[in-house]
């Protein structure tokens, strides 16, 4: 604790010697060392080395910058980010936002960023779910389940990801053509053009229902807070589920019904070269997602297993002594504690899945690396292009880290 040599509200105490007379206990300070400009003074040495290192780094950066500009000039390579405003002319197969080759490079790159985020976010969620299941399965008392999970982990994590991606992509291409597509369900088609399935014809009522769902989630959260406050105050427990059901299910349904309950399915139909209508999962996206999820899940499984095993056996026994089922022991006692061990390495896996998504280049999924590479090639702006790739990955990775650090702090053991 710092010495409270100032007491707020009392102006006279703002003067140090006044404070000193007020309470001599806090006035003791180390004797002020005289600052001497001598090599023997460690402070001088510290400052000297810091200045030297800063100078070297600064010089290196300056040299790189000057040299780059000079080299670019010698080679007559245009510089700057002006190319972002030019028409790209690039075809991009998959885009979450409207895009045509007549759009600018900036928009093409944005499409690439969204494609990266799409596969990274979905991949991280699925890999976490699958990894957790497999990690728990490895600890199962059932011999077969445990061994199968062990084999899965060892096989998937020991093979290079690129190889796995090419394997899955090869498999997708091995599916029959659109005219001989497999039809596992009515309206669902599996072909080498991807997975086609029926999709809602979107109407305002659906958007409204989605909004109502979001409102319902917020409402449920508010109710649960209120109920907990009530329980803390009065000790009375009120079940949450009727409120949750009404708000999350009832409200959107009511809104949808009130707006005429529209429900039409857009069925994929074979017309011309390909299927028209319905929704598509392209073979490139499917192969990339499958490869990333299966590969990363193997690592997540090991992290989950390690996290569970890090919890002392006494915790299981204590939970058992309370009469909890094994699944409840895991869910209520072990996992919440294991999370503290699991979350930090899990962050690394999320970063990995994001960065590994750049292997998409190999199988033709147009993520940010693919689009930026093509941009570099068409415009020749290599330095700008690489800078854009770096900024994008840095931003995504730092965001993931920040979020996971926040979450980690939230679940950390509260020591009071």
């Amino acid at each position, binding site marked *: 604790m710092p010495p409270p040599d100032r007491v707020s509200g009392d102006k006279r105490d703002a003067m140090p010697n006044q404070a000193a007379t007020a309470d001599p206990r806090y006035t003791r300070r180390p004797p002020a060392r005289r600052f001497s400009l001598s090599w023997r003074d460690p402070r001088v040495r510290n400052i000297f080395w810091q200045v030297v290192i800063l100078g070297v780094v600064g010089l290196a950066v300056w040299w790189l910058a000057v*040299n780059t500009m000079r*080299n670019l000039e010698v080679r007559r390579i245009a510089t700057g980010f002006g190319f972002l405003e030019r028409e790209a002319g690039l075809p991009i*197969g998959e885009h979450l936002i409207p895009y045509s080759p007549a759009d600018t490079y900036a928009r093409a790159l944005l499409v690439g960023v969204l494609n990266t985020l799409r596969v990274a976010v979905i991949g991280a969620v699925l890999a976490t779910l699958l990894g957790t299941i497999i990690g728990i399965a490895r600890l199962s008392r059932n011999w077969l389940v445990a061994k199968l999970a062990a084999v899965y982990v060892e096989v998937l994590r020991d093979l290079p990801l690129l190889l796995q991606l090419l394997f899955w992509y090869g498999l997708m291409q091995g599916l029959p053509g659109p005219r001989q597509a497999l039809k596992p369900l009515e309206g669902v088609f599996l072909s080498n053009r991807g997975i086609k399935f029926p999709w809602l014809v979107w109407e305002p009522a659906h958007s409204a229902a989605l909004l109502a769902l979001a409102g319902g989630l917020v409402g449920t959260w508010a109710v649960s807070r209120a109920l907990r406050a009530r329980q803390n105050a009065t000790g009375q427990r009120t079940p949450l589920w009727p409120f949750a059901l009404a708000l999350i299910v009832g409200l959107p349904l009511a809104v949808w019904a009130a707006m005429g309950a529209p429900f039409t399915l857009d069925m994929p139909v074979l017309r011309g070269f390909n299927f028209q209508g319905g929704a598509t999962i392209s073979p490139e996206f499917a192969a990339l997602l499958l490869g990333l999820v299966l590969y990363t899940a193997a690592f997540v499984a090991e992290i989950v297993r390690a996290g569970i095993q890090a919890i002392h056996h006494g915790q299981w026994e204590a939970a058992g002594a309370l009469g909890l089922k094994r699944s409840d022991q895991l869910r209520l006692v072990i996992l919440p504690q294991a999370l503290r061990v699991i979350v930090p390495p899990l962050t690394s896996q999320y970063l990995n899945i994001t960065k590994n998504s750049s292997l998409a280049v190999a199988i033709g999924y147009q993520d940010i690396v693919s689009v930026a590479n093509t941009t570099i090639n068409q415009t020749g702006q290599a330095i700008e292009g690489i800078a854009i790739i770096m900024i994008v990955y840095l931003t995504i990775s730092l965001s993931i880290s920040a979020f996971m650090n926040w979450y980690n702090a939230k679940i950390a053991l509260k020591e009071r």
Partner: protein
Amino acid sequence: MRHSMHAGIIAAAFTLGTAGFAAAQQAPTFDAVKARGVLNCGVSTGVAGFSNPDSQGVWRGLDVDGCRAVAAAMFGDASKVRYIGTTSQSRFPALQSGEVDLLVRTTTWTLAREASLGFQFAGINFYDGQAFMVKRSLGVTSAKQLDGATVCVQPGTTTELNLADYFRTNRMSFRAVVIENVEEIRNAFISGRCDVYTSDSSSLASFRATQGPNAEQYVMLPEIISKEPLGPVVRKGDQKWFDLVRWTFFAKIAAEELGVTSANVDQMLQSQNPEIQRLLGVTGGLGQMLGVDNRWAYNIIKQVGNFEEIWERNITPIGVPRGINALWTKGGLMYAPPIR
């Protein structure tokens, strides 16, 4: 497969890292190649007829012969070439960074590539045009019927841009499958992932030629949708090197025009035709002006051949007729300025 990424980084790193000596020297590339004693030549990997290692691992093709001719002119030895395989995306960084001295890789001459990439095209060794290939079983006979098709295309090419232009002009839609590696993109087409494979017509012919008995399954649509003048490329900033590459190519054309072949070049040394005498370095001292041996063109013709021989050896087997690539005297576009 990640070569392009590496190449981009290498290019960026090179530009960041190499000291700017270039400005001080008059002929940095020419001198560097001469001192090294071997030409680093960027070529494509696996385009039959243009550059493709044969079963013995010897590189063969029209583009490869472009590299060999420059080595013959420079060193008097066509074998002093180190071939560096590049993808459609890695080729430009490789040239910009100095990894290759010369790029002969079915590269289309465009304004932007000269004005903003810092390159110079030394000539046109193949007048090409973009075409579409489909499976015969699809029953398509014209590119105008391709509305809604899925198209396989390599990224970072003029092909990719022309494709978008063509469909836009004709108010048709398409879906692109974009893969960099030439083998992967062809596999995607063969497996039926795409309805159409688009590239330069020469490259499509080359693809078809390597399909053996299956070649009959594929047809090229009649539309040629673009001009694709392909040629050797160098970095800007070394005029001496540019001159050598340019005139090496013209020497091959001139030799065909004058009827000088690798078989008769030794007899031709006795020719009384002043044009042949100048070409073969008997008179004129033209080689010295380029900074190489006066027998530079003799070496090219003796070791690599004239343009006709090169064509017969590489392009005829993949089934592409000479067409507009014939000499100007035979109704084609191949024309060399006077070598004097």
